[in-house]
């Protein structure tokens, strides 16, 4: 079977790749494209470790065919830090130790950024619901939620 040719934009840069019809976007990101920040936890859309954005919408890249990326703009964790500076969420996660083993962290960060892009002043309840699709087996979530709330506060103050 001939490979499919896909033209897409990844983290703002035009990108082309070849894939098989049944390959997931996650497979292609981690394999041929070498973007291993997105993780495979469950491969069934339950854990959120593979979270990316597609035209600004948060999705599980394990539940999307690579072929569906044609003409889309994909955002991955590799595009989160602008240049050499970490994104405020990344800095805060380090400061507040909102991670332990780190497997879930790229997905959590992508999901949290997607929330703050839409809602700069979320309640704790909103943070917990928005992140309900990101499983973490280390932290117990509390540090994650607090780090997101603190980042939101810092970012709001920085805008003032």
């Amino acid at each position, binding site marked *: 079977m001939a490979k499919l040719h896909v033209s897409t934009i990844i983290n703002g840069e035009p990108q082309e790749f070849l894939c*098989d019809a*049944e390959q997931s976007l996650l497979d292609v990101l981690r394999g041929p494209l070498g973007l291993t920040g997105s993780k495979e936890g469950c491969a069934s*859309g339950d854990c959120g470790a593979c979270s990316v954005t597609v035209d600004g919408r948060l999705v599980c890249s394990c*539940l999307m065919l690579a072929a569906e990326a044609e003409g889309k703009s994909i955002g991955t964790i590799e595009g989160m830090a602008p240049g050499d500076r970490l994104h405020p969420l990344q800095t805060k996660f380090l400061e507040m130790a909102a991670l332990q083993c780190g497997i879930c962290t790229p997905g959590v960060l992508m999901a949290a950024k997607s929330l703050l892009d839409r809602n700069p002043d979320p309640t704790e309840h909103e943070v917990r619901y928005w992140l*309900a699709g990101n499983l973490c087996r280390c932290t117990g979530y509390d540090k994650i939620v607090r780090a997101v709330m603190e980042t939101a506060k810092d970012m709001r103050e920085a805008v003032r």
Partner: protein
Amino acid sequence: MTDVQYVAPGTLDEAVRAFAAASGAARILAGGTDLLVQMRSGALSPSLIVDIKKIGEMTTIEEGPDGSFRIGAAVSGAVLREHPRLKKVWPGVVEAANLIGSTQIQGRATAGGNLCNASPAGDSVPAMVAAAATVTVQGPNGRRQLPVEAVPAGPGRTNLAPGEIVVSFTLPPRPKGSGDAYLRMIPRTEMDIAVVGCGVSLTLDKGTCIAARVGLGAVAPTVLSVEEAAKALIGSKLDAAALDKAAAACRAACRPIDDKRGTVAYRTQIAGVLLKRAATIAAERAGRN
């Protein structure tokens, strides 16, 4: 490597042609949140995947001049949630679709997929049944419309003819004084599959219920439209006696299974409880419209 093929046609005619030509070995890809999981587990190995998201009619929401809504079958839950008018007119339909999965799943999962996956526990379906949604399907022999409750045939099976694709849902014009609601019972607060789901849509005129529909999920092989429950509400002021009668009708309609998530007795009992609660919320919303 298997020899599965992927196509993403730009028109519905092309999609139907490709889908029908593969005669049963093809699968429609909308949000993929069921399809990709089933493929990966080995439950399904289609020879052709027809991605319908490049077809404009299937990915848009339109409000008609008469106040009806046409929702493309491949519209995601997130897009439903963000539509300013749909949420106001049909809050029950939107809240039902939005209960499915996480933020990430909402970015992809569609009402068309939820219907065609034909799980008795699909959350959007009872709300669509209560809303009296009609489904437009297109196949090799053209287009037809059918009530949403006529689509599922049993767990994982539909009544669609070979080559037919669900194109859109149409929600009818909404009279003044109307409201809808959907509630489901799950053992946790989120990220679970309905043990029972109940959608209620009704119209009030000076406090009297003049129209009602009830959809009940996860208590039979298919989602049910419970006409006896609707009849018990119509003509009443939704007083305790009317709600008791409608709840009894819901319990009488149940033909559930026993499984690890709920027993027959529990599901049956809860069907009546959810009917009362959903009807109360729908009535409260109707009073504001």
